[in-house]
């Protein structure tokens, strides 16, 4: 942890804020794509420390938030109707489906288990040969390698009672979807460092060129974020646009070859629906034909009613950066973590949850 302390240093933060204040002239909207970055900005009080002409917009980078309600309904259906052992990361279990969340299904007797790794789910399948086990494989490119490995491991060890319900989404198409919106006011992006640690940087050069927009790959600590913001502001003030890597201690240009190999063996790129945003072409991973026996969608039947979500939830507008969470009329009234209308209010990376838990107070000037 000592390694991290310099990235949380009040002195370095103060120096970076001073440099940002000295650099910024115009009014700029910078979008952090990743929900983890949103939470760090809010939790550390950074949003209120920035000069008022820098607005941080919170992007669609929470995989839980963009998982379509239909897939949550399918997970609930598997747990309740097919009586599978439904395994999930903790974030997913409170997110509301059309009828109920996985947490509610669990309370009604469904066998829903919270895990840290899909490899644990494979072990559960081995220990329960008479039961079907499904892992709800949600996430961006970061969780895809482990999910792919779980399928490979199940295949190699002859485990047949295991499958994954995939809701994998990809960051570059999401950035393109935000930029393609006519009302988009984003001037620069902070790229999600952990995604790039897996996938590398190459996917971002075409986006920078196509939309003539700065992208700075950034980490999650206060100093990382402020360095990313400073780099973006410097580019904007000079009228430049290029891809920069602030997170060099973790991100290499080529990414992680073995992780990408695991993804390539099990998954193929597919169109994917994003909750609150709609379908984005080639924006997700699905299980490829070679491993279709481990694809829960193909393995099970789903005789379900049509999914629906609360039409008043503005999560799509929030994730596109059109409004801030506290500008939503439902924020903190009809929509709270206890009674959420949408996923961003319950996910640990959701922008609405960040605003709800750490709502900002008067700035204390540290410079």
């Amino acid at each position, binding site marked *: 942890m000592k390694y991290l302390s310099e990235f949380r240093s009040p002195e370095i933060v103060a120096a970076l804020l001073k440099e940002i204040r000295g650099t910024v002239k115009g009014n700029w909207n910078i979008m952090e794509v990743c929900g983890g970055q949103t939470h760090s900005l809010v*939790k550390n009080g950074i949003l209120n420390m920035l000069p008022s002409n820098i607005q941080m917009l919170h992007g669609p980078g929470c995989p839980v938030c963009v998982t379509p309600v239909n897939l949550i309904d399918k997970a609930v259906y598997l747990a309740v109707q097919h009586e599978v052992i439904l395994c999930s990361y903790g974030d997913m279990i409170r997110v509301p489906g059309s009828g109920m969340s996985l947490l509610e299904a669990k309370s009604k007797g469904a066998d829903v288990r919270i895990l840290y790794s899909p490899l644990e789910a494979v072990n559960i399948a081995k220990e329960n040969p008479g039961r079907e086990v499904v892992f709800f494989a949600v996430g961006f490119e970061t969780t895809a390698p482990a999910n792919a490995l779980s399928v490979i491991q199940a295949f190699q060890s002859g485990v047949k009672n295991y499958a994954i319900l995939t809701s994998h989404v990809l960051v570059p198409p999401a950035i393109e979807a935000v930029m393609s919106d006519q009302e988009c006011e984003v001037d620069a992006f902070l790229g999600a460092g952990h995604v790039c640690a897996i996938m590398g940087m190459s996917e971002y050069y075409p986006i920078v060129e196509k939309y003539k927009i700065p992208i700075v790959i950034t980490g999650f600590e206060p100093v990382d974020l402020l360095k990313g913001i400073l780099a973006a502001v410097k580019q904007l003030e000079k009228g430049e646009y290029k891809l920069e890597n602030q997170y060099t201690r973790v991100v290499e240009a080529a990414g992680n070859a073995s992780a990408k190999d695991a993804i390539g063996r099990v998954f193929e790129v597919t169109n994917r629906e994003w909750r609150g945003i709609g379908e984005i072409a080639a924006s997700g991973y699905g299980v490829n034909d070679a491993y279709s026996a481990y694809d829960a969608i193909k393995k099970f039947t789903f005789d379900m009613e049509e999914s629906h979500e609360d039409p008043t939830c503005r999560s799509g507008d929030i994730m596109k950066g059109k409004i801030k969470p506290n500008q939503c009329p439902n924020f903190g009234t009809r929509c709270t973590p206890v009674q959420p209308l949408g996923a961003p209010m319950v996910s640990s990376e959701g922008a609405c949850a960040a605003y709800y838990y750490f709502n900002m*107070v008067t700035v204390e000037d540290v410079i």
Partner: protein
Amino acid sequence: MKLSCPLPKLDFDTINLGHGSGGTLTSQLLDAGVFKLLENDLLNKKHDGAIFNLSGKVALSTDTYVVSPIFFEGGNIGDLSINGTVNDLAMCGASAKYLTLGFVLEEGLKMTEFWEVLLSIKAACDVAGVNIVTGDTKVVERGKGDKIFINTTGIGIMHPKANIDAENIKTGDKVILSGPLARHGITIMSHRQGLQFESTISSDTRPLNKIVLSLLDEFGEKIHFLRDPTRGGLATVLNEIATDARFGIDIIQKNVSVEEEVIGACEMLGLDPLYVANEGLFVTVVDPTVADAVLSRLKEWEYGKMASIVGEITTDHPRQVIMKSLIGGRRVVNMLPGEQLPRIC
């Protein structure tokens, strides 16, 4: 703590439904195990209740312990169930005197495990200076319990100088935390998840009665409030205090002690130590004139080396807890609506 008292000679090595019947098997279990180990004049009477004299003002507290796993680094459900109720009484300003002990045992529980729990109960009672004076044992079918649930109810005598009440809190009072956060919760969660950290983190379960009573001896009514941040952690307790006292609380994050290994575990699990459960830790709100002296006294205590003044009561932002972050930003610390859940990435 190494427990070495041999298991009594019994005709069974697991708990079965007959042990909850109230008949011969129940008597065998209790006579050979519970009564013999925990014996004292009141318990030895084996009456349905305990009869005793207490003079002066008393405090009463009850709690039920359902922790899983039942054994963890630093303790088990047995000492937890004693320390927890002793501490709840201490937070009232009372010295625990007598405890009741209620077991719900799951069919199939190994006698060796039950015996280890009992030995820990005995050891915890000895350390805290309390007696178990009456109790109850029930057995539920396999699958309908989680090995063992324990209820303890305690009665304690109030310290003559104690006046612990949120109504006593006033602006300018200092908020003192007795030690580092999150040890117990992280220990339990790492067991559940099968995670191993570089250095072993152990629960901070321990009785707090002696240190609290010595503070009351020395500082009396200047100790305005006491609370142990168990479930819900420090953030929850501070919010309860702010709400009940109708004041705001300012907290300085850099003064809130969290050990390096616990920070590392929290980072890995995606948890905020402010919300993680503790057991042998307490928050006290004290008059500012005695804050430094209370802190010095706490630092002399064997578990108080990392005690610190973490914040102050304020009339600003009533009912709200605001923390100055490590980097100098400020943010609200709210209550959580439910359990913290591990995150995706």
